[in-house]
């Protein structure tokens, strides 16, 4: 398998220099390294520039509804647990309109890999504030500066029950590939928040400014240690990149499956039983 076989014939419609190109490079390499057959992979997204991802992959694609990628992915996983699901989206899609869904995807520990392209702005709608925009950040919808402190995607993921939480940088596709591969191998809700600059509408959070704040996670960091992970995740100055948190916990699909007490009987028999018991 090589990376190019996961690229579709559609040329990405992102602006030249958009951080999302780095994510695409990292993902196709990760898929190649995993050796997943394209027919076993579903790319699910919401709506946004970043959510165009499924068009650019030659896997199954589901370009769904703004903010609803997680429930769509859950539906997909329950219906076809044999298919690998990778979810793509922006910070607005995932944490504003989709914020409520995110928490429940994480606590259920659904077995998906979720890649957020975090550019601290709304790209597709041409530059409004996002939940990860900094306080005082000026956009078209915050002309006097934002009065809302940002949320921290990795902190939220850790606290909501995600079992693999990493932070990456679009300027480092090789590093991204490693984070994606590890997230894909992980059984459970794997969130990779990628700092991925919007070069068109965000002149503050750029490749340069992100790079200056990035720091590698210390080699002795215990990834199973929740409070150590939160300390790194919430560092006020630095963006620690790498795997912040990783634990094992039963996944939603298995818990759902375990409820199916009738798995060795035909469903018709079960229905008859249930109906009889009601008569």
């Amino acid at each position, binding site marked *: 398998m090589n990376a190019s076989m996961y690229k579709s014939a559609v040329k990405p419609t992102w602006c030249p220099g958009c951080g999302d190109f780095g994510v695409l490079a990292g993902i196709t390499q990760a898929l190649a390294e995993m050796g997943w057959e394209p027919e076993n992979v579903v790319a699910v997204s919401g*709506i946004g520039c970043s959510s165009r991802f499924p068009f650019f992959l030659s896997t199954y694609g589901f370009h769904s*509804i703004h903010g609803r990628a997680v429930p769509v992915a859950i539906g997909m996983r329950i219906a076809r647990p044999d298919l690998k699901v990778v979810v793509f989206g922006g910070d607005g899609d995932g944490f504003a*309109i989709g914020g409520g869904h995110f928490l429940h995807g994480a606590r259920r520990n659904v077995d998906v890999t979720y890649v957020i392209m975090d550019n601290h702005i709304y790209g597709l*709608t041409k530059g*409004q504030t996002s939940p990860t925009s900094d306080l005082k950040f000026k956009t*078209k*919808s915050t002309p006097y500066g934002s009065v809302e402190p940002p949320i921290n995607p990795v902190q939220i993921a850790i606290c909501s029950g995600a079992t693999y939480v990493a932070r990456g940088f679009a300027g480092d596709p090789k590093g991204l590939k490693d984070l994606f591969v590890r997230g894909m191998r992980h059984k459970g809700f794997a969130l990779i928040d990628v700092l991925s600059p919007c070069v068109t509408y965000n002149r503050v959070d750029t490749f340069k400014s992100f790079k200056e704040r990035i720091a590698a996670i210390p080699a002795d960091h215990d990834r199973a240690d929740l409070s150590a992970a939160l300390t790194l995740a919430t560092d006020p100055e630095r963006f620690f990149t790498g795997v912040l948190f990783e634990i094992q916990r039963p996944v939603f699909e298995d818990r759902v499956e375990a409820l199916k007490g009738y798995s060795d009987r035909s469903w018709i028999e079960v229905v008859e039983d249930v109906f009889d018991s009601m008569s």
Partner: protein
Amino acid sequence: MAKQFIKGNEAVVKGAILAGCQAYYGYPITPASEIAEAAAYYLPLLGRTFLQAESEIGAINMVYGAASAGIRVMTASSSPGISLKQEGISYAAGAELSCVVVDITRGGPGLGNIAPEQSDYNQMVKGGGHGNYKLIVLAPNCAQEMCDLTMHAFDLADRYRTPVVVMADGFVGQMMEPVEFPAPVVDLPPKPWATAGTPETYKNLITSIDLEPDDLERHINHLYAKYAEIEANEVRYEEYMVDDADLVCIGFGVVSRILQSGIERVRAEGKKVGLLRPITLWPFPEKRLARLADEGKKLLVMEMNKGMMVDDVRLAVQHRVPVGFYGRVGGNVPSGREVYDQIMLHLEAV
């Protein structure tokens, strides 16, 4: 105030400001974002509030809350975002709260595209939410009306304690035209039902629940008595050369403007064609249409959808006269040529 050359979307915000709108809650979506962006710019300068919510659901519920406090409040969005707001709109109609919802319509279904369509007619006029309720729906066709009808919407909302919709296709929202500003509204009606923070009103309860069937039926009958009053008093439409016409074209929003120039062209050729433009889509000018049918005039409905308002026209005339339909979808706006050809086609059939 001097005339300004502005986009329809900006005219909405300026109209809202003049009407005394105190708060705007929204969520970005093309082609309605300029409304949020203009509100974000102007409202704080006036000591009023703008907030970008976490979603359209968040936004309509913030509106629901602010409306219950009795202030003038609005939200705006475009078709997919309006679909999300429908739950909140149903609640506001049930709880009888005054608010204004602006819909700058785009192409659907689904994500569709960001080009102009009028396919939200059914979700707005027929009620996209659950339950027995109606929404007043105003359909501007120029930037001036975007301002004026937004102001009117706030008045209607207060007068009838009901959500009012201003629905314009993306074309009218994006078009730049001169706008003259009416005088600001200074005297706002009192709202004794609101959470006013006074000793007299502290027992006010805002709700849309009525567990007893008889209670709910009474409440719905009360709503429908109000709707009957609206139907009797608030119908608005505009006519152009209808009196001697053999064929009357019917269209709202940008379509009405294209129709008007098409009619001018065929009139120059001596053909008797007129235009009726509903300004209120609900209440609908059905009485006027019935009279046109009495006079035996043929009708041609043109819309940027697959035929939605045409159903209301057919109901109004009860199939007594032929009702033709021509629609373009996908964000295509009918051209002058198409309008001309359609008029000729339907005239010939006279």
